Structure formats: C-alpha cells, structure tokens
C-alpha cells in the first residue's frame, strides 16, 4: 500500500483470480478482513456478524434485496458510521477509531449511491481534490506561489487529465461538475476516488441509471481499472448482468446478515439466495 502505483495507460497486467473465500486466495495476504462486524441503530441491528475477506486484486460484489444493509456496510468500512462490534483490518492494520478522511489516507476510496460531487467546481478541480494528499506543498507555498507550487500543480494537472482519460473525459475538464450528464457524473466520481490512490475501491451502485450499452462499457472499465491499477474493487449493484459478469466473489446480504458467499455460479444456484430474492416456493 505504501508504494505508489503508477498508472500507465493501456498496459494490462494479467491478474490471478482471487475470491472472497479465503481458501482460494493465492498466497498474498488479503487487503480487507472484516470479522464479526456489526452496528446497531438504537435497538435495531442493521448489520450483524459480517465476516468477509477481500483479496488484493479481487473484484468482489455485495448484493442483496433493498434495505439489506449493503450501503451500511460501506459506511462502516469508511467509518461514516463507527461499528458497534467487530474489527476491520485494512492491509493488516486495525482501523478502529479512525475518521473517514484517515480511512481514505489508509487506502479505501469510495463512490456514493446518490452522487456526491463538488458541483460548483470544474471536472478537473474535482479530480485534483482527489489528488489532495499526493500534493505536498503547504498553504504558504500556495499563497506565495513558490516553485514547489508550480511544479506540483503542473504534475497534478497532468495526472488529473491522465486519470480522466480512463473514461475519455479529458475534454470535459473545464466543465462544471454539477452540469454534467448523469452517467458522466457517476464516472467522474470513480475517477475522483481513483485519484486518491486507493488499495481498495468501493463502488456503490456504479451502474444505477445507465442503459445496457453504458453498463457494458462500465464493466469493461471496472476490469480495466483493476488490471492497470492492481487494486481490489468491491461493488454494490442491482444489475445482475454486471455483478455476475465481472465479480470473482459475491457476497449476498439479507436483513444485515450474510446469507451466502461464493462465485457467480454458486450464488445463482443457492436456494437461500433465490428465496431471499423471490420468496419461498409454494
């Protein structure tokens, strides 16, 4: 996590297939380990006994009916909510008591179900805010415009355009983020999250509101991001073609409990999952 991953456009690296299931993990230590994770809101247990392991370059899916607690899990992982029980280890380090911004600096970046961009700022500025912790000049070198400022701003500008080019958005750099079409806003959120140089990327319904061809393009891009940046990606999605198409490990959540874990085929034939989604067979 400490070493900086340099993004080189077009350079694909073959990745061994990892899985949520620890026995299938190939040698390397996992990036994320949750054990007995849970949170209560007052008397209501929203998430309970959430145990999951995500490999270093795995694409993991988190699915479940509405209200199952998927976004709550993301909020627990990023410490928007402090968990009531359990531990989260990120790259072997305990994240207990950390703030959301510290969690980001430790290596988790995320997108939101309801898009949260910096609407009044330009697309490029949005990405540069993602690069915030990789620029190292102080407030005073910023005000006095010391050489350090010019050097790092130039580097940030180039890096921002490079990151935007993943989604072919470099031409939109000067546009106001809030005025972009819906799909472009979703993609910009992913670029901004990637700019923070994460080891684990959490995507909350990345395909929401996209048409089938846009979804297909997004699937390609998610795999491309994993291959070029060599990071783990965990996503919440209702579009089963996307989940079943790219997720190497899938975890099904219902009423805050994990009801199944496994590969796409295993999940599709799991009777408990079918029951959670379709109800009991008469």
């Amino acid at each position: 996590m400490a070493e900086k991953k340099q993004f080189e456009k077009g350079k694909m690296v073959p990745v061994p297939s990892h899985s949520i299931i620890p026995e299938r993990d190939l040698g390397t230590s996992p990036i994320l380990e949750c054990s007995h994770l849970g949170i209560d809101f007052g008397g209501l247990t929203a998430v309970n006994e959430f145990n999951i392991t995500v490999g270093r370059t795995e694409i993991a899916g988190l699915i479940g009916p509405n209200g199952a607690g998927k976004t709550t899990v993301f909020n627990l992982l990023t410490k928007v909510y402090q968990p009531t029980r359990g531990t989260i280890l990120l790259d072997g380090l305990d994240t207990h008591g950390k703030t959301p911004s510290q969690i980001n600096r430790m290596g988790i970046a995320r997108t939101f179900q309801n898009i949260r961009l910096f609407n009044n700022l330009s697309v490029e500025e949005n990405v540069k805010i993602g690069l915030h912790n990789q620029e190292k000049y102080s407030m005073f070198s910023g005000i006095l415009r010391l050489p350090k400022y010019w050097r790092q701003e130039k580097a940030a500008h180039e890096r921002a355009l490079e990151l935007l080019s993943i989604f072919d958005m470099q031409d939109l750099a000067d546009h106001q983020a809030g005025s972009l079409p819906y799909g472009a806003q979703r993609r910009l959120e992913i670029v901004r999250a990637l700019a923070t140089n994460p080891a684990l990327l959490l995507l909350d319904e990345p395909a929401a509101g996209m048409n089938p061809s846009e979804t297909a393009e997004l699937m390609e891009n998610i795999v491309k991001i994993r291959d070029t940046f060599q990071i783990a990606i965990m996503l919440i999605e209702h579009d089963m073609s996307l989940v079943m198409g790219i997720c190497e490990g899938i975890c099904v959540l219902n009423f805050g409990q994990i009801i199944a874990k496994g590969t796409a085929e295993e999940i599709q034939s799991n009777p408990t999952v079918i029951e959670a989604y379709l109800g009991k067979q008469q």
Partner: protein
Amino acid sequence: MKKINKNSLNGFINYGIVIAAFVILQAAIGMGRLSNSLQSLLVPACCYIVMAVSLNLTVGILGELSLGHAGFMSLGAFSGIVASILLQDLVPMAPLRLALSMVVGAAAGALGGVIVGVPVLRLQGDYLAIVTLAFGQIIKNIIMVLYVGVDENGFHMAASSDHFNLSADGTAIIKGPMGAVGVTKLASFTAGFILILITLVVVQNLVNSRSGRAIMALRDNRIAAESVGINVTKYKLMAFVTSAALAGAAGTLFGLNYSSTVASKFDFNTSILVLVFVVLGGLGSIRGSIIAAALLYVLPELLRSFDIAEYRMLIYAIVLILVMLATNNEQFTALMGRVGGWFKAAGKRIAGWLKSLGRTESKGKGGTTNG
C-alpha cells in the same frame, strides 16, 4: 453543460481594477478634484474592502456563516493601536511602525479566530454563526471596560479604573468606555491600497491552491470531501483564521486612521454591514465584494453632502433592495450577460474590421506587384 472560465485571468483583472482605481484617485487628489470629506473616506473604504474580501473567504468560499467579523476587526484595531504606541520610540519610521502594528493586529485577529474556531468548527450546522455573534459582543464589552497604559514601570492592564494604577506621567492608551485616545494617525491611502493588494494575493492564491480546493470541497459536499481524505477541521480552521487575520490587519489600519477609537464602533451592525457587502457582491465573488464594499460604503457618506441628507439612510436602504432584486433577477442577469456579449461582439467586429482592412491593403499591394 456549463464551462468554467480559468480563474487565473479573473484574478489579474481584480488586481487591475484595484490598481486603476488607486491611480485615478491619486491623480484626482493631486489635481485637487477630490473634496476633503471624500478624501477622508478613502482609508476606511480600503478597510471595508479588506473586511468584505476576508469575510467572503469564510462565508462564500468556506460556506460558514460568521456574524462577528467586526469582533476580529476590533481585536486588530486595539492591539494595533497599543503596538503602535509601544513601538513609538523603538521604530521612529512611521510606515514601518504601521506595518509592524498591522502584523500585530493580524496576529491578534488570528488568535481570536483560533479561540473561536477550534471548538466551534468541529461542529456541523449553524453554531459558528451563533458563537461569532456572541464573540463580537464579548469583545466589544471587554474592551469597553479595559484600561491599558504604559509608564516608567512598564506596561499596565486592568479591567476597571480602580485597579488601573498608572503613574502621573504615564500614557493611557485604552481608557475603558472612552476607547483608545491620543493615537498618532499612521494610516494612509497608500497603506490601504497595499493592504488590499496583499489581501487579494492571499485570498486568490489560497483559493487556487491545494488548500483552497480543499476548502471549497468542504463547502460543496462535506461527506465527499472527507471520503477523499480531506481533514475537515484543519481546512475549516485554515480559512476561518486567515479571514480573521486579514480582518485584524484591516482593523489596525482603521484604528490608526483616527485620533480616537471606541469599541462600540465595531458592533453587530458593523458585522452585518460587511456581510451585506459580501452577499450583495455575490458569495464567493472576490470582485463583487470589492465593488460592493467600495460603492456601498461611500454612497451613504456621499448622500450626506446633498440636500437630501435627512433621507440618506432611506435611500441607502432602497439601493440595497434594488441591488438585491437586480442580482437575483434572471432577466436582469441575462440582460447584463447580453450587454457583455454586445461588447464582446463589438470588439470582435472591430478586430475583424481591422484585419480585413489590413488584408485589403496587402491585397492591393499584391495586385500592384502582380500588375
């Protein structure tokens, strides 16, 4: 989709406006075209411009409401006055003494900003507005009972006249409800102009740096800003303290422009006046703050000199309402956009005309050589 103009050019336009206004006003003073009463408005106008631009950093760029900006001005004014008198023998050169006093005033403002900001900026919601409102009142009331003086035994400070045992030949600097008296006027229009330029450099360069982007990110979406690793309290505090320090420097300049200053000058009304400049000039718009502060500060004073003096506050209120209506009216802003468009189109047409003129000329020349 909306394009955003690069704001580096915008910044240079602001410097240009300020420098041009300074040159024109200096020329007018030189030619004796500016009345004494107008000349006396120049320094306070500079102070209010700095106040408005600095408050815009808190309200427009950080997005937190502050109702006690005059409190920081007050801190700067009185600490600056004390510093200027203490430095009288040490630093005989007036401009240097003014500059040093302004540094002291800015430091006092910043200290006030830290004291208010550290506990309050951790909270979400309108707490800053409530606490700064109280802070302004507290500062006013503390200075109203504060006695500060210097004599051969050194520096004296007391919270009532009974405990204020200054020797007979000592100098009292702040005398409770009477405020600061016997101040040597060090402020000048040039100093005010330089302070405005410094403020613009600080605010505009801050906004266009990594720190400024973090501050604007907090304004636009705090949760998203946290999710990309921005330390919320640090950047809120950075914006708020910078704003308070600039207000402190403006306060020093203001205090050193009069032979006596009372604390009640920097009350809630002054805070609201500056807030009015910021809101009418446009939240987040530095140029708007400069223009609004300059015009709206000078206007009521100008009205004083006409026959309608009795109605001046009434007219002032009407102007405020009109400006508010105009800036919020879509048709009006569209009209202003169109006027701007005309100028642009006219400029383009003139440029095109000049070009075609040059082309026909060269064509003519070409023709003759061919012939």
